[in-house]
């Protein structure tokens, strides 16, 4: 079934987000002009964080749906359910977001089958409507409603991808791992690690990132860096922290992981 979180606006506490460029401005513009947004980027580079941050900034709730290939249109729109009094209609996350004028975030949207994502079409052009076939209702999205989808255009999605007719309904935003200075601020901001060690970790991460496509399918993410820094701060041996949080999650191949450890060791003087 659908993974669903409704994050309520917490104006008191804005989730920490370190902007990489102009993305917050673009988000705001898209929001004001009711344009749906497509965010592309590798795993763990801050997409989810960005959306939660922006939602809090704009004071809107977020409905997050983690897409998968069994996701049906009914999982998004809603379905009839049975109770002791009979059957009743239950809104899906998309419908709820439209009704409430919230932000609906479909994570890893390419995982969803293409016939599922077509329900987004009337919502994502200038009609901004959501026809609910089962109840005969047609919802008109309020100006506060915003649809955001994300995916990771990596090789594991070799044969997946969005239909051009779906893709071309969105304003696009490409995320990547941040520049070292920014990533350093993220690391120190997230974990409280000192700058010297943060920089070291980032240099190492960038060395490992150079291996993407050639030796590794995925690059070491900011998320993994945060994990590593957290372990080190907690007093765990730095080399072992790198192994646990940066090397092992990247590959299952023993030869590759031992080679990655050589890279770690070259960077990290005992």
């Amino acid at each position, binding site marked *: 079934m659908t993974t669903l979180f409704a994050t309520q606006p917490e104006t008191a506490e804005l989730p920490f987000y370190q902007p990489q460029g102009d993305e917050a401005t673009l988000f705001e513009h898209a929001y004001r002009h009711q344009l749906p947004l497509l965010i592309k980027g590798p795993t763990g580079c801050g997409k989810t964080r960005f959306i939660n941050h922006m939602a809090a900034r704009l004071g809107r709730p977020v409905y997050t749906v983690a897409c998968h290939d069994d996701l049906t249109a009914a999982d998004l729109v809603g379905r009839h359910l049975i109770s002791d009094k009979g059957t009743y209609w239950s809104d899906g996350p998309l419908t709820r977001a439209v009704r409430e004028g919230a932000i609906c975030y479909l994570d890893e949207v390419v995982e969803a089958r293409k016939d599922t994502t077509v329900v987004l079409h009337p919502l994502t052009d200038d009609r901004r409507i959501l026809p609910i076939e089962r109840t005969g209702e047609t919802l008109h999205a309020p100006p506060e409603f915003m649809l955001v989808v994300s995916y990771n255009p990596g090789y594991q999605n070799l*044969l997946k991808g969005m239909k051009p007719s779906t893709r071309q309904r969105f304003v696009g935003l490409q995320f990547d791992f941040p520049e070292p200075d920014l990533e350093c601020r993220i690391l120190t901001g997230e974990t409280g690690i000192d700058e010297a060690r943060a920089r070291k970790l980032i240099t190492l991460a960038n060395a490992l990132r150079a291996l993407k496509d*050639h030796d590794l399918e995925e690059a070491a993410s900011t998320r993994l860096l945060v994990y590593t820094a957290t372990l080190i701060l907690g007093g765990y041996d730095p080399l072992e922290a790198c192994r646990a949080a940066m090397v092992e999650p990247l590959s299952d191949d023993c030869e*590759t992981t031992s080679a990655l450890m050589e890279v770690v060791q070259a960077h990290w003087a005992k």
Partner: protein
Amino acid sequence: MEEQVGKIWHNIITRMANSRHPEAAVHLEQVKQTTGILFRALGGDSGLQIESAGTTRHGARRSWLQRLAGTNQQTELAWRDERSLRLPTVVDCFPTPELNRDLYLWLTALATGDSGTEQEWFQKNQQLTAQTLAIYPGLQPRYERLVAAHLKQRTHSDDLPPKEAAQEEAIRNALLNPGSEDHLPLAKHQPQPVPLWLHPAPPLASARITPSIEDEQNNSSKGKSKELEEQHRRQAEQVTKPEQDRGLVAIRMENILSWGEFAKVDRGTEENEELDQAADIAKEMEQFSVTRDGKSTAGRLRFDLDLPAAENDDQILNAGILLPEWDYKSQQLQPDHCRLLPMLATKAEACKLPDHLRKTAKRLRAQFQALAPARTWRRGMPDGSEVDLDAYLRFTTDRAAGHIASADGLYRDLQPGARDLACLLLADLSLSTDTWINDQMRVIDVIRDSLFLFSESLSATRDSFAMYGFSSRRRDPVRFHQLKTFDETYNPQIRGRISAIKPGYYTRMGAAIRHASEILKEQPAGRRLLLLLTDGKPNDLDKYEGRYGIEDTRHAINEAHHLGLQPFCVTVDNKANDYLPHLFGAGGFVVIRRPSELPKRLPLLYARLTRS
């Protein structure tokens, strides 16, 4: 007299220290992946390959005993050039495998800092060392261990004539305090080699000491003869991967062996005979290289082959298609650079599936019927295996609300989903496919069987597919054999064409991929898979080899991506890890280690790739 004995004694000690440690030897093959990853992670160019450097004769003063024994005159050097990082084939200079392995890693790290500037060997290596240690402080302990172990092996300056002694002192100092020595004192002999340092590429004897003619020849043919030795050492060791060394030279050698006078060499047995033959070939190659241009001929040994007479050849379908080619040096696409000839084996006789594939084909067909097309639940069916709860609920709510509700379509059923998919398979039919992989089969036979089983499986899925083969002879012609178009159905005639494929010429992959992409892009399917089946890297008689060929192929692959196609490569080349990631990305190819398994694995791979 006393002094004389002392000298001899010392030499014995030295020789012991200098002697190799075969029991602790580490082979490049063992550390290739690690060094490759380290090299790229530390900023090395991912287009470069890690290759074996071969041995170079060093002109250094040998100790008396060594001279007597004729040992220690060869040393393995490491250097970096335009297309590869060369590392020694074997490192056995230290008594423990750990140290020998450390040396590989150290040299690799050192090479990443080498920007290729022309600089004196002595200064350059000191500077590189200092720089490497500064950037990667974690390497310091490793470096110190290596220096300590190496210094023990060097003939001490006390035992050398004054000039050589001064030289030796400078080197020792440079190793201990990199950057501290600004010039290497002159001496009559070349200094003892420093395995911890990179050699200026490619190794030529230092300009100050003119090498003998013999040395020069030795240098130029070294890489090659060494590769042969290599190949044979491996065969003699009965390594289970007989096709390990399949660089250009190895492939050519295979062909020499499988042609004419060296025909029918039974690989893996009769090793002595084989070694003799290898030696002969090596000698011949040496002559070849020397007469050719007197320089290094790495990868030069190739044969021009005549095209068959038209009446014996496949029918040419049209005047040819002009295709561009990418020149990475100028970063430009050269328009109309290649001429591709679509060809068809019109004379091939229709035939049945070969008997030895029957059983496998049957099994695959059954698997494919069940497995390949993603089965989906169809909702709202008038009949089906389960009640469609959603439809039923709707039906009951509608009726309860007083609406007229129709009761058809309350079931769901599991049905084979239509697959919106087209696949073009492009098979490499170059000469290298003439290589024998065991007593019964050549690569081409494996490719043929693969094409058969692939077609058998895919026709069971109703997926739309086409098959072509290619080989080339320079940029004109690139022979493009039509085996099955998208419009044709798989039938005995197509089987005839598959059965008629034979090893052709060279491998101009870029042009073939470009044309295949053109064909595939016309297919209306939502997913379009371009499957490349090959046994080696791009190469042709002209400059289409090494980096040029690889970069053109890479460019063609990128074009295919841009057209919305999904290229994927299946190869039986064990060396493919060196260059395929650069072409296809880490998830864009697969290496079939045992070529004989290709026919069975290809269809399954297709199933996995296209699973939704």
